[in-house]
């Protein structure tokens, strides 16, 4: 394990209210010192002048597809995509095949991550057995195996009593319940957001109410149980309003949104590009503005990608047949910089918090900060470097991004996980952790 000194970068560490030019000394995988000027002989120096030095980013919502759909993504390729996007930790959703509804699958994911992954992988276990929404998974066993939360993501928990019991039961392990809010009776056979665009295209609509009805239900259950609830991929104006009101009442909940909900609207779907099919669907400008407002005032705590790889074969179909989802790990940070920080929506510190310390707090991870003594997970970014999103450059096994060809700013250059450089100057230097 090498020791090194990161010199002259602008260190932004929201957990410690730190924003300034500092040097960081890393020894034995830990952050040894953060200070105005550190001189030390015999250590490797990484110059970070003009760069941003951030706590390694945390994506609390990804799909790594292993086990089951290794043709779309593996833990190896998914974590490489994460590293390329500046993420040093990812929380992966349990809707694999077989699903992470038992300790065996969770242990498999952790061991694959150990063997093939290049960033930290935190499995999320399922709420219900087989993600069927009928019976609770062995949540205690999942907890012991190392899950950081539970979710049936991809499917909602339609049975309100099951959701209530999940919240209550998980609270004894201090596990956050991550809810995919979708009232299936309302989303029905919907393909895109219900509104003018669905009317023109003749595609069945998913009304905003399909999400909001369940957000409201879960808020009520969170209040009743006092358990820790997290609302995944918030996409509508009404959800933002419900969450804002719940927070002001002191209910224990948090929320995330994904970059596509603050950059794209259903108008884009007019092209019938299947990479724009996602669940929840892209909404209207009004919703997009409300999401931005929610990010600004703190209603939305975290930015997660909902990285959902799908093969070309599956996406090259009729729009209604193409599975919903888009990849996001490799574009998220640049989109946050270009669309939120550059446009003055969020300060750099706020933006970084939503991708580091906030998700860490929600999942109870000891990560996302640059304290002395903390694990050295560090991301170095060139904030001024603009580039065009290029599918050829993706480390992900899948290419289903609607952002291909988009001009963005903020290039991830160096990523350090547990004191080991994984990416340096945009190139992989460590194949395996």
């Amino acid at each position, binding site marked *: 394990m090498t020791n090194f000194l990161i010199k002259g970068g602008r260190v932004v560490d929201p957990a410690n209210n730190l924003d300034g030019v500092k040097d960081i000394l890393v020894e034995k995988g830990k952050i040894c010192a953060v200070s105005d000027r550190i001189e030390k002989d015999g250590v490797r120096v990484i110059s970070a002048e003009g760069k941003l030095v951030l706590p390694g980013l945390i994506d609390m919502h990804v799909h790594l597809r292993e086990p089951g759909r290794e043709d779309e993504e593996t833990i190896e390729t998914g974590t490489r995509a994460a590293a390329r996007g500046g993420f040093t930790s990812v929380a992966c959703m349990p809707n694999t095949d077989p699903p992470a509804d038992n300790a065996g699958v969770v242990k498999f994911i952790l061991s694959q991550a150990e063997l093939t992954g290049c960033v930290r992988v935190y499995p999320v276990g399922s709420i219900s057995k087989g993600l069927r929404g009928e019976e609770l998974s062995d949540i205690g066993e999942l907890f012991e195996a190392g899950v950081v939360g539970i979710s049936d993501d991809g499917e909602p928990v339609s049975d309100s009593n099951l959701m209530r019991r999940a919240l209550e039961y998980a609270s004894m392990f201090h596990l956050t319940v991550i809810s995919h809010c979708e009232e299936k009776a309302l989303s029905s056979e919907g393909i895109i957001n219900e509104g003018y665009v669905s*009317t023109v295209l003749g595609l069945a609509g998913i009304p905003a109410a399909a999400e909001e009805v369940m957000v409201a239900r879960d808020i009520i259950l969170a209040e009743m149980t006092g358990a820790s609830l997290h609302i995944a991929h918030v996409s509508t104006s009404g959800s933002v309003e419900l969450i804002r009101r719940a927070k002001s009442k002191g209910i224990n909940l948090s929320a995330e949104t994904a970059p596509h909900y603050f950059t794209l609207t259903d108008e884009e779907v007019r092209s019938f590009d299947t990479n724009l099919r996602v669940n929840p669907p892209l909404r209207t400008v009004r919703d997009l503005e409300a999401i931005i407002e929610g990010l600004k005032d703190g209603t939305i705590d975290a930015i997660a990608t909902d990285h959902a790889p799908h093969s070309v074969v599956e996406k090259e179909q009729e729009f209604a047949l193409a599975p919903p989802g888009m990849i996001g790990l490799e574009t998220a940070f640049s989109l946050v910089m270009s669309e939120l920080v550059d446009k003055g929506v969020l300060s750099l510190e706020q933006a970084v918090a939503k991708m580091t310390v906030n998700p860490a707090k929600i999942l109870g991870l000891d990560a996302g900060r640059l304290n002395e003594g903390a694990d050295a997970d560090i991301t170095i970014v060139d904030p001024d470097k603009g580039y065009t999103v290029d599918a050829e450059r993706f480390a992900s096994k899948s290419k289903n991004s609607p952002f291909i060809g988009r001009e963005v700013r903020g290039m991830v250059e160096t990523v350090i996980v547990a004191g080991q450089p994984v990416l340096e100057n945009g190139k992989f230097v460590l194949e395996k952790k």
Partner: protein
Amino acid sequence: MNWKRKDLLGLEELKKEEIEFVLDTADSFREISTRAIRKVPALRGRTIVLFFLEASTRTRVSFELAAKRLSADLVNISSSTSSMLKGETLKDTIRNITAMEVDLVIVRHGMAGAPHWLAREIEPGVVNAGDGCHEHPTQALLDMLTIREKKKKLEGLRVAIVGDISHSRVARSNIWGLTKVGASVVVAGPPTFIPPCIEKMGVTVKYRVEEALEGADVVMALRIQRERQGKNLIPSLREYRKIFGISRERLRLSKPDALVMHPGPINRGIELDPDVADGPQSVILDQVTSGVAVRMAVMYLLCGVGKEAISRQLSAVSKKQKAESL
């Protein structure tokens, strides 16, 4: 004008002039179907593929006759006879077909956007013969041709479209087409059949059929699909008929010479009473006749042949029309 499009995917993207050009071209083709020998060599040596992945009688036969009357070579593919049954994807099927050098592909598909995607993927022209609930441009064109023939104009007419607007590609294409040429369109049906924000397409919405029919020059009834029953969009066909069915009595609210139209197939006694469907104001079979002419025009234009010939014919037609009007 010159026709510059490779494909005909919908009326949303067509300009008023283009719509009128297709209608004028169709007018010039009408007469061929009335000859003793109903065939001209216009598309001899051209290959047209009919790729129908959804049930159809009228539209399919109409395209088929149109192609034959223009002497094109015709290939018919349907989902039940294609290797898509063996699991071949739509993309592979269509690329294989086009590798055999074809000029035009006519696609009907149950899902919105499928023809648009194919049009991007393949070199030959693509005609949308109905994609899900999205568009059915040739149907709207033939409706407009029929109206124009009977009313001698489209601009300023009041057209009422009654039924399940939400699931109707015919309604969408007609709304785009009719509003572009200056007709005013009223749509009517229960709120469960009216899709959100449809006013933005330039129409007026009425929930009482009587209000929609009042003063209408054209009454277009849409097929109520029986499979919609049981999805709680309407309580029953019986109740639909009672509240929205076009009866002789209700039709009296429209102008005395109002046209009654239906894209077919009709549920007699549900959306249209039989005596209205077969009554003197009904032009339902004229629509079918117009269909062949419209599809001949579309194939002719998209196969990219004889643009000069078109303008020659058109000038002859307009001379003839002028002579008639004098």
